[in-house]
């Protein structure tokens, strides 16, 4: 798990929206083969961090490296360098079929002859998508759309897959399905950086975790440690009995 050079490294990243500081010096490392989760409350800056990596929002300062090399400053270049983001809220192309959506994901690739192979691969991960190959993406259920969004990201053959809230708005049983597939995707060689509000699910899946709070990473550690950490439990996991209420 510990190669010398991290596959993705964020150094002292600052991002602002006008006068509002969204990220105040975030640094994190992801090593090849890992699943790393970043948990945090609403507005902590999780999505902003992902968007900054993908060059969707401008960085104020800080560096991002892919295997020690500076990451490009345009989204389409980041994708060809080997990073792909499954955005929050899925953003599938509703009027296109499942197959066409997947082909959209394969668009920037140069190795056209290998696309068929990867199509088989994502269909083996998500057999539901193969059943619905010709169906319009807009008519899929929320869970299927999330699967499609992940599969579409995989079609660019990323080395690092970024996931922004893959559990958003889904039933617990579907979340379980999706997280199981994420584990499988990871075991087949894709490094995963996951951002989640659903902290318990995320930490149970990942090897390591970071806790993001109002633009700062306040904690990091192995996922088991974070799950056992009383502060994390208090703030993000709940005890199961008193969810949503303040403990006396």
């Amino acid at each position, binding site marked *: 798990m510990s190669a010398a050079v991290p596959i993705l490294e964020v150094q002292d990243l600052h991002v602002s929206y006008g006068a509002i500081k969204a990220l105040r010096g975030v640094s994190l490392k992801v090593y090849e083969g890992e699943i790393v989760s970043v948990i945090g409350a609403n507005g902590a800056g999780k999505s902003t961090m992902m968007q900054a990596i*993908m060059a*969707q929002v401008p960085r104020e300062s800080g560096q991002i490296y892919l295997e020690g090399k500076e990451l490009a400053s*345009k*989204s*389409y270049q980041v*994708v*060809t360098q080997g990073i*792909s*983001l499954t*955005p929050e809220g899925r*953003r*599938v*192309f*509703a*009027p*296109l079929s499942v197959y*066409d959506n997947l*082909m*959209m*994901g394969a*668009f*920037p690739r140069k190795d056209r002859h290998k696309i068929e192979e990867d199509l088989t691969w994502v269909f083996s991960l998500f057999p539901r998508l193969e059943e619905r190959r010709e169906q*319009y993406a*807009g*008519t*899929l*259920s*929320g869970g299927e*759309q999330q699967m499609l969004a992940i599969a*579409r*990201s995989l079609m*660019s053959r990323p080395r690092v897959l970024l996931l922004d809230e893959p559990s958003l*708005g889904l039933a617990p049983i579907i979340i379980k399905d999706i997280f199981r597939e994420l584990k499988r995707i990871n075991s087949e060689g894709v490094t995963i950086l996951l951002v989640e509000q659903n902290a318990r699910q995320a930490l149970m899946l990942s090897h390591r975790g970071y806790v993001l709070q109002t633009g700062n990473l306040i904690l990091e550690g192995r996922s088991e440690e974070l799950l056992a950490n009383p502060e994390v439990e208090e703030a993000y996991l709940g005890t199961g009995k008193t969810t949503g209420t303040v403990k006396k």
Partner: protein
Amino acid sequence: MSGYTEGIIILLCINAIAAMGVSVLTGFTGIFSLGHAGYMAVGAYTTAILTVEYGVHYIPAILLGGAMAMVIAYVIGVPTLKLMGDYYAIASIGLGEAIRLILENWQSVTRGARGYPGIEGYTTLYVSLAFFAVMAFGMFNLINSRFGRAFKACRDDYIAASLLGFNTARYRILSLVISAFYCGVAGALLGGFLSFIQPIMFDMIKSTELTSVVVFGGLGSMSGTLLGASIITLVTELFRPISQYRMLIYGAILVLIMVIRPEGIMGQYELGPRLFRRLKDKFSFRNRDNSEGRSS
């Protein structure tokens, strides 16, 4: 064939070429423009000046007219296409009008508002049909190619497209430049058909007409665009005897379409086997058309 019928067919070809140009930008890339008559004007004037003043043969002159429209579109597009949605539409009104005003006031080159007479009547039936055939062939190939897919991705979800590795800014410009070429050529053919052009022919009303033809036919359907262009051209001609009521009928048709079929005649479908299959499904199972919107 009488000269009148010939004239209508030529006009059909010209309008169809211009409409295809607007369609690739508005219907397929999702960029609304209300200034495309400006690119027609650029094509028309460039070709007129080249043939009249410099004696250039009309075929290279028409192509150069289209090319000039492309160049202008590129120069204008690089700074303005950063605007999204309605903001670009508003900017495009200004751009179209600016082109017209420059033509009106640049007396030494364009002969100003009185118009540019004495253009050789090079737009014969065969020339216009040939241009239409070649350009329609090119357009249908374009929208079914990699580029067509990229345009549609930019239209349907700009952010998702950029996250999937589409160079969205480049495809938006490309779409604008191609659409300007089509409009430029259409303008050049119009000049050769009428033998006389005037800046006022390319005003905002003409621009709006181009965009409404595309909306009428169906945003995102090239065959719909051709159908829309034909219907609008024919209706305009059919009611020429009662010309004072023409705009009334034209407006009524547009309102009717908006009420009955807001997605345009063809919606996003092309005339072809796929549409036929869908229609069959629709009527045999009485399925509801649920191709739009996201369910969750």
